[in-house]
């Protein structure tokens, strides 16, 4: 088997598309934005090329690109309707957008996150939409943790996972009412392009599902003590103000948020413990906050009245 060096080829493709958009390209800015097993992203000037996960499905990706292209107020629109093949990897092209500043927590666009999610969740669901992949990602993160072996943080995370209903473990369909969901929301999924406000990126998990899942990660950060109550409040208030349907009928938001927040705490803890062990480093304070939350989750059974599927 020939090992293809993906990065230089992806960079060449990004350059090629960038030069069709701007023939007078100065070629001054660019580089690798992300290089992970589930996706590699390269920038050339105002153009970005993404190589999707090796197991990405062409048909589903085309449908997800089409969804994003049809929602230019919510998603950064792709440069083209279909992926191209690069040695077996699907590659898509996008305009470059500025990310959230990692060094300035006060500038985090919590209102925009809440508003964009509400707009997405209010979109009528097209029949062709694929299934949102959030619970599948959580299940994969937990499967990865099984390979870690003997580590004191493994058992609490698995115990917390065991409190979840089948749908949140990707073992049963998600409860209705369904909505169009991002599926992997975090602050790295927002960018700003010149002349526009914040937009969502990353369509890989986009699809039909339980909208509360998209609120689950901020909810998890808040419940783990990583997100301050006033920032959590800004996010939640913006989501409600924009008519977000996940919390519509719920008097107590946590009746709806509990399961997704548990699931995303477990997913985040599973990933971070797996990575710490693989890197041979001890758990840091954020890791401990996540694992401690898993211990508390395991001590309180989930409210199975919501979202239980028989």
């Amino acid at each position: 088997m020939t090992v293809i060096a993906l990065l230089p080829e992806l960079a060449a493709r990004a350059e090629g598309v960038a030069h069709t958009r701007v023939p007078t390209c100065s070629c001054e800015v660019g580089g690798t934005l992300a290089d992970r097993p589930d996706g590699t992203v390269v920038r050339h000037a105002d153009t970005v090329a993404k190589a999707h996960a090796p197991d990405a499905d062409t048909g589903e990706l085309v449908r997800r690109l089409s969804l994003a292209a049809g929602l230019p107020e919510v998603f950064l629109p792709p440069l083209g309707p279909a992926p191209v093949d690069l040695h077996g990897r699907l590659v898509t092209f996008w305009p470059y957008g500025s990310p959230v500043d990692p060094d300035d927590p006060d500038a985090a666009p919590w209102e925009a996150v809440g508003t964009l999610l509400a707009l997405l969740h209010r979109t009528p669901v097209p029949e062709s939409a694929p299934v949102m992949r959030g619970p599948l990602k959580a299940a994969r993160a937990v499967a990865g943790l099984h390979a870690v072996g003997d580590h004191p943080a493994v058992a609490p995370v698995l115990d917390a996972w065991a409190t979840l209903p089948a749908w949140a473990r990707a073992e049963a369909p998600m409860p209705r009412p369904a909505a169009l969901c991002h599926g992997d929301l975090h602050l790295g999924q927002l960018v700003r392009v010149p002349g526009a406000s914040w937009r969502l990126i990353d369509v890989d998990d986009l699809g039909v599902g339980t909208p509360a899942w998209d609120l689950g990660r901020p909810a998890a950060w808040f419940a783990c003590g990583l997100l301050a109550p006033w920032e959590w409040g800004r996010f939640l208030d913006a989501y409600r103000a924009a008519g977000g349907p996940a919390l519509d009928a719920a008097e107590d938001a946590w009746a709806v948020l509990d399961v997704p927040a548990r699931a995303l705490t477990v997913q985040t803890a599973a990933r971070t413990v797996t990575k710490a062990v693989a890197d041979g480093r001890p758990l840091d304070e954020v890791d401990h906050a996540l694992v401690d939350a898993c211990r508390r989750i395991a001590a309180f059974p989930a409210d199975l009245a919501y979202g239980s599927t028989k």
Partner: protein
Amino acid sequence: MQCPKCRAPMHTYNRNGVQIEQCSGCRGIFLDYGELESLTRLEAQWSQQAAPPPPAAPHAPAAPQAYPAAPQPAWGAPHGGHHGGHHYGHHRNKGFGRMLFSS
């Protein structure tokens, strides 16, 4: 029900619509799932009525003390309560960096 600590009988009381069980022996209190959240919510409403927070300027970080206690799940971490945002200064930058990634 019986007190899990001293085994004396527990009596049910209703406090502002929240049912709590108090032990007739050691005076310990038992809360069912969700009842702590209900009490937190009542406390938040009470403190809002007692001292309405000044309207915050848009995008300015709100003063932690002025924000009413946000409800959270039974398994939530302690959020510093009335002692303010001390806890966040500690975790904040590191935790914020993690929010930018899917990990």
